[in-house]
C-alpha cells in the first residue's frame, strides 16, 4: 500500500506536460514547425513576427469555433450545424445592427443568443430525444439555412457590422496583439478551466467515456449534453460575429468553410472522435496547423480545387498516422 501511494506521489510531482504528453499533440506541434519551415522556403516573410501574428489572428476565428466543436466531440458527439450557426450569428448580429443605437449595442449578444438557440435545439434532440447528433445537427443546419434564405431572400444581406464587431475582429486593444487573438486566448483559457477544474468538465469527459456509468453516478447527463451543444452553438455564432466584423458584413455561405476545419483541428489535436479523451492544447495545435496549411496553400497560389484536394489528403494522412482506432485483435 505505502509503496504504491509513494509512486503515485512521485508521479504527481512530475510536470504535467511530461506526465501526460500526448503523442498526438506532440506530433501536431511538430507538424506546425515543419509547415513553418516549408513555408519559409517559399517566402522569407513566413517567419516574420507580422506574418505569424496575422496567422494567429486568422486562426483565432477558427479557434473560437473549434472550441465549441471540441466540447461536443469530447462528449462523443459531433456538431454539423456549424456552417449555418456561423452564418446565423453573423447575419443576426448585422440585422440587429440595423435597428438604431439599441440594436448596435445588442448586436453581438443577439447573434450569440441565436447561435445558442440552434445549439439548444441540437441539445434537446441529442440529449432528450436521443437522436444521433450527426443527424439532428444536419437537420438543424438545414432549418437554419432555410430560415436565413427566407430572411435574406437568398441574397447576401445588406446590413453591415457594427463598429464594436469590427473592433473585436480587427482592432488592437494591446499594441501589436490583435483583439481576435486576445478573444481566442480568453475563450481558450475559460475552456481549459471548465474542462480541468469544474464538475461540468469532469462530467463531459465521463459522459464521453461511458454515458451509462456517468448517469448511474448521478450525473444529470442530459443537462450536460444540452449545455455543451448550446455552448457549441453560441461559440459558432460568436465566430460568425467576429467573421462579420472582419469582413464588415455577413454572407450566405460564410460558414461552409469552417465545418471541416473545425472538426479536423479538434481531431488532429488528438481529441478522440469517439469522445472522452483530448486536451485543449491539442485543439490549439490543430487550429494553428490547419490555418498554416491553408495559408501555405494560398501562398503557393494553389487554385481552390487543388486546395480542397491537398486539404482532404493531408487530413486523412495525418489521421492515419496517429488518429486510428486500436486494432481489434
Amino acid at each position, binding site marked *: 500500500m505505502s509503496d504504491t501511494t509513494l509512486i503515485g506521489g512521485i508521479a504527481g510531482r512530475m510536470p504535467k506536460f511530461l506526465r501526460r504528453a500526448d503523442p498526438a499533440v506532440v506530433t501536431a506541434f511538430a507538424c506546425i514547425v515543419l509547415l513553418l519551415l516549408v513555408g519559409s522556403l517559399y517566402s522569407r516573410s513566413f517567419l516574420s513576427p507580422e506574418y505569424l501574428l496575422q496567422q494567429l489572428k486568422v486562426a483565432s476565428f477558427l479557434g473560437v469555433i473549434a472550441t465549441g466543436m471540441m466540447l461536443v466531440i469530447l462528449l462523443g458527439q459531433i456538431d454539423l450545424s456549424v456552417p449555418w450557426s456561423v452564418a446565423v450569428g453573423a447575419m443576426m448580429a448585422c440585422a440587429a445592427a440595423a435597428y438604431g443605437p439599441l440594436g448596435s449595442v445588442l448586436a453581438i449578444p443577439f447573434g450569440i443568443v441565436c447561435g445558442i438557440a440552434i445549439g439548444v435545439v441540437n441539445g434537446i434532440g441529442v440529449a432528450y430525444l436521443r437522436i444521433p447528433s450527426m443527424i439532428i445537427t444536419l437537420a438543424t443546419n438545414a432549418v437554419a439555412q432555410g430560415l436565413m434564405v427566407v430572411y435574406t431572400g437568398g441574397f447576401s444581406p445588406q446590413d453591415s457590422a457594427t463598429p464594436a464587431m469590427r473592433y473585436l475582429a480587427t482592432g488592437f486593444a494591446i499594441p501589436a496583439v490583435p483583439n481576435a487573438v486576445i478573444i481566442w486566448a480568453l475563450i481558450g483559457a475559460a475552456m481549459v478551466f471548465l474542462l480541468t477544474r469544474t464538475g461540468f468538465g469532469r462530467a463531459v469527459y465521463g459522459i464521453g467515456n461511458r454515458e451509462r456509468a456517468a448517469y448511474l453516478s448521478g450525473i444529470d447527463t442530459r443537462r450536460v449534453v444540452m449545455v455543451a451543444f448550446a455552448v457549441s452553438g453560441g461559440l459558432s455564432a460568436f465566430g460568425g460575429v467576429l467573421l462579420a466584423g472582419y469582413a464588415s458584413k455577413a454572407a450566405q455561405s460564410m460558414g461552409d468553410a469552417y465545418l471541416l476545419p473545425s472538426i479536423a483541428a479538434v481531431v488532429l489535436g488528438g481529441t478522440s472522435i469517439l469522445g*472522452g479523451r483530448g486536451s485543449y492544447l491539442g485543439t490549439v495545435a490543430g487550429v494553428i496547423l490547419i490555418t498554416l496549411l491553408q495559408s501555405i496553400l494560398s501562398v503557393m497560389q494553389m487554385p481552390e480545387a487543388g486546395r480542397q484536394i491537398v486539404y482532404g489528403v493531408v487530413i486523412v494522412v495525418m489521421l492515419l498516422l496517429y488518429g486510428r482506432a486500436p486494432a481489434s485483435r
Partner: protein
Amino acid sequence: MDGAVPLFSMQGISKRYGGVRALEKAELSVTAGSIHAILGENGAGKSTLIKVMAGVVAPDEGRMLLDGSEVSFASPAAANRAGIVCIFQELSLIPELSVADNIVISDPPKRFGLIDRKAQRRIAEEALARAGASDIHPLALVKDLPLSRRQMVEIAKALARKPRILILDEATSALTATDVAKIFGVLKRLREEGLALLYISHRMNEIAELADQCTVFRNGRNVASYAAGSKSDSEVVELMIGREYSHIFPPKPARHGAAVPVLEARNLCWTDRLDNVSLTVGAGEVVGLGGLDGQGQRELLLAFFGVLRGLAGEILVDGKAVSIASPSAARDGRIGMALIPEDRKTEGLMLPMTVRENLSFAALDRLSKAGVIDRATEQRLIDDMVELLAIKTAGLDIPVGALSGGNQQKVVIAKWLMRQPRIVLLNDPTRGIDVGTKQELYQLMRKLADAGAAILFYSTDYDELIGCCDRVLVLYDGAVKRELVGAEITEHALIASALNIHGEGAGPLQGEGA
C-alpha cells in the same frame, strides 16, 4: 483417460496481456466421446484458454495438436473449419438478424453464389430441433428473444457447424432449469455421437452430473486433472483457491428487536418484471435478494435508484414517501442512496479515465464550490477511500482500466462511499473478482451496516447470501415469494424457494419485516 489417443491437445501455452499473465505453460488434452470439465476461479485462465483454442486470441508460445499434427488458428473461422466450435459466455449472436440467419452465419448454404434461404431455413430447423429448441421460430429476430432463448439459439448455431470439439463456456448461466435439463440431454447424446465436449461452469452440481474428466486451473496453469467423481467438492474447491475455503464471512451481530426502517417499498409493480414487491430494510441491516437469476432482482434495485419509468407503488425513505426520478435524485442528501451496479466495466467506471477521476466522480457536487472542484478536499477524500478500502494501484493518475477486477470493484464502491450513503444497493458486486477481495467486501458490508447503513444486497451466489445477510427475500417471477430470517437462511431453503417449490417448511409468503 484409459490411454485413449487425445483428439486435441495443447502444450505449454502461454499468453500475456500487457504485464498480466493469463496463461502460463498450460496443458490440456481432450478425448473424443467424453465431456471434459474445466474448473477454476474467475481469472484462473479458463476463458483465455478456450479463446486460444477457438482462434479468438493468438497464444504467445506453445503448440496445439489436432489428430496428432500441429495446428494454429488465425481466426475463429479457421478454428471452426478445423471442427472446434465455441459457445461463448458473451453471446455471439447478431441481434438484428433472424434466428436462421444467425445459425448459418459462418457458412450459409448458397445457390448461384447467393444465400439459399430455403436450405438455410431447413438447416436452422434441424439445428434447433437437435438443440431441443424447436419452439423457436427460425424467422424471429434474435433481439426479440429473451436471454434464455438466445442461449438456445447459440447452442443450435454451434451444432449447425458440425463440430468435432464443442466448447461451452458458462453456457447454462442464463438458462431456466427446464432448458438446462434439455441441454444436458443434448450434450449426453453428442458424447455418444463421439464428440469431444469441453464444459466450463461454476455450478458444481452440473459438473458432477455431466463430466467424465475434470481439469482445475489456477493462476493460468492447470493444477490438477482427475476422473470426475474421484474428488469431493471441498477438495475441488481447495484446488481451485489453493487454501481452505472457510471463515470468509464476518460474524453477524445478534439482532434484538426490529430495526428502524430506512428504506421501504410498498406494492412496487413495473411492466411484467416486478409484481407487487413490498419490503423493508432497516438501519444496520443487510437484506439479501435471492432467487434464480433474472427474477426481477436487478429491476428492483434499479427501481429504487430512479432508473425505471412507469413504476407503480410507493417508495418510502425514513417512513416518508419519496419520488425518485433519477439517480441524481436518489443520491441526493436527504435520500442518500448508492447503487453498486451490475457491470462495473460499463456501468460503474469510465475505464480509460484515471483512478482519481473515477473515485471522485459521484461526489463532484459535494467537492465543488460554485461548480469548481476543490482539489484539496478531493485529494483528502480520495486518500481516505484508498486507505479504507486498501485499493492497490500504482498511482491515482493511471487509467482505472489498468487495475485488477477486484480493485476496480473497490473503486466503484469507494466512489459511492465517498458520499457516505445511508442506503446501499449492491447488484451482484462480487462477480468476477478474487476470493481475497470478496472477503474484504463482505467485511466492508458488515462494517457499513454496523455504522447504521441500510443495505440491500443481490447476489447470484447463495453462499454469500447465507454468509452475509440478516434476512433474505427470495424473488420469483418478479414477486417476493419468501422471506428467510436468520437461521432459516440455508442453502436448501434458498434453492427450494428460488425454484418456487411449495414444499414442507415453506413459510408464509412475504412476512412483515424481521
